[in-house]
């Protein structure tokens, strides 16, 4: 049994020019202890599909799926109150902009203890002790002092560690990391990725890594899904994706990496691929 099972997920937004399909028939499976990377450019629907799974999209979005199962629980059929018991506890998410995702009006300590009180029913002393333990786990120095800090008093890397601590606070079965390191420096990125991989291995979590950075994919993933304009273009294990990409789009994406540059100009996707060619080899 897969931890998260999505079949034929579609998300539509109503716009002034008619419905816009942000996600078009995406299917995926994640097992416990597995790292799945979803790669794509902006607008490829990689974040939206995960937000849909968590039920975090605004009411203007129309979410349909043949199957949207987490641990054999149908997420689409749940009431909002029941879903809230799962989201944030068993499925947790780390967002792209750590500084923007934390509430600037409250201390980071309050924000992590709030999660512990609501989801786990811990009292004040217990939630504080657990918060210190979690800050320690994600490598924040002086955790007890740091609890009283506001997000603006911390650096981007520290804020991202707080986000990770909050996401891990209830020992989630599935962690969704949406571009967790895009806003960070390379050296901090390395630390955060190492931390995520260590925690994922220790807790046997399922991890979905949403990114557009091929280097991050290469360093973390077991399996990779490539998305383009809301559709799944390719799915493969990480080695075969980099070694022998099947879709022309994936090949073009890898060729556009400056690492792989051979001539004095980079090959670009728009030059030699139309949408039809990209979708021709798409998997469902």
């Amino acid at each position: 049994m897969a931890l998260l099972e999505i079949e034929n997920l579609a998300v539509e937004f109503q716009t002034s020019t008619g419905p816009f399909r942000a996600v078009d028939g995406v299917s995926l499976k994640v097992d416990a202890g597995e790292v799945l990377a979803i790669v794509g450019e902006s607008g490829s629907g990689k974040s939206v599909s995960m937000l849909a799974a968590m039920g975090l999209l605004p009411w203007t979005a129309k979410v349909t799926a043949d199957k949207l199962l987490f641990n054999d629980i149908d997420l689409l059929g749940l009431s909002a109150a029941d879903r809230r018991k799962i989201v944030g506890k068993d499925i947790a998410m780390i967002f792209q902009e750590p500084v923007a995702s934390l509430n600037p009006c409250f201390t980071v300590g309050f924000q992590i203890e709030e999660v512990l009180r609501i989801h786990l029913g811990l009292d004040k002393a217990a939630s504080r002790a657990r918060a210190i333990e979690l800050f320690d786990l994600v490598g924040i120095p002086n955790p007890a002092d740091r609890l009283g800090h506001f997000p603006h008093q911390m650096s981007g890397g520290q804020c991202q560690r707080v986000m990770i601590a909050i996401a891990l606070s209830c020992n989630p079965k599935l962690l969704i990391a949406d571009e967790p390191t895009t806003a960070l420096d390379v050296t901090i990125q390395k630390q955060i990725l190492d931390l995520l991989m260590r925690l994922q291995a220790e807790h046997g979590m399922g991890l979905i890594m949403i990114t557009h950075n091929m280097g991050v994919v290469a360093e973390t993933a077991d399996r990779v899904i490539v998305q383009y304009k809301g559709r799944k273009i390719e799915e493969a294990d990480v080695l075969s994706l980099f070694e022998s990409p099947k879709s022309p789009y994936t090949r073009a994406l890898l060729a556009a990496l400056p690492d792989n540059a051979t001539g004095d100009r980079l090959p670009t996707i728009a030059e030699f691929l139309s949408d039809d060619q990209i979708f021709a080899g798409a998997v469902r």
Partner: protein
Amino acid sequence: MTAVLEARNLVRDYYIPGSLMKKGKTVHAVKGVSFSVEQGKTLAIVGESGCGKSTLARIVTMIDPATSGDMLIDGQKVDIAKEKLTPEMRQKVQIVFQNPYGTLNPRKKIGDILTEPLIINTRMKADDRRDKAMAMLKKVGLEEKHYARYPHMFSGGQRQRIAIARALMLNPRLLVLDEPVSALDLSVQAQVLNLLADLQDEFQLTYVFISHDLSVVRYIADDVMVMYYGEAVEYGAREEVFSNPQHSYTQTLFAATPRADIDSIKARLARKAAA
């Protein structure tokens, strides 16, 4: 050949005023940095946030004066703290910023954005300004019909092209690029990097390219300078720096850069299987 840009021992301090209970303090953002760039070459400045690379960009672009040290542009000494900047000097250096969503005025049409530097710095006639803007749009891969559109109608990559076009309107000698591709998707990044290379060939432009992405730096730079806490800890030709980094920070930086080649994936999977 004289260098287009030469910096000798540039220092920049920021003074943070104190309050009733707190003493003021001085932040040393740039601590004595020297470098030079020749015409048609690219110098890449690498470093983490807070290392002083953007402060350096502001000094080179003549937005902020240096606290001490000399800066020479085309062999001519510039010190904006002492004398007012002439339009001729202003035309020599232009800058492209990181975020193409924040640097274009949303209430102005593309044509007005492109012609504004000409209005301020030259006495060109309106027709000529328009012709020049049209020509520049084509040069950066956009079309004439985009002249009367607003920034919100463009994608991130297109906006960065507009920002580059605006920087080139005054025929600068030196272009400072402050993380020009870090907000862009991989495929768009490739297009913009190609455009920059084309423009450099055509106009013999000199670039100061600020970035924290080493794979981009390795691709585009001739010389590389690594900055760490306001100091240049490593400065040399690209191949030298990449093949034989001297300073421990540069080595850390290289080790931290994610690698997308097959061998390192195999090595990682092997480590994972063994654990």
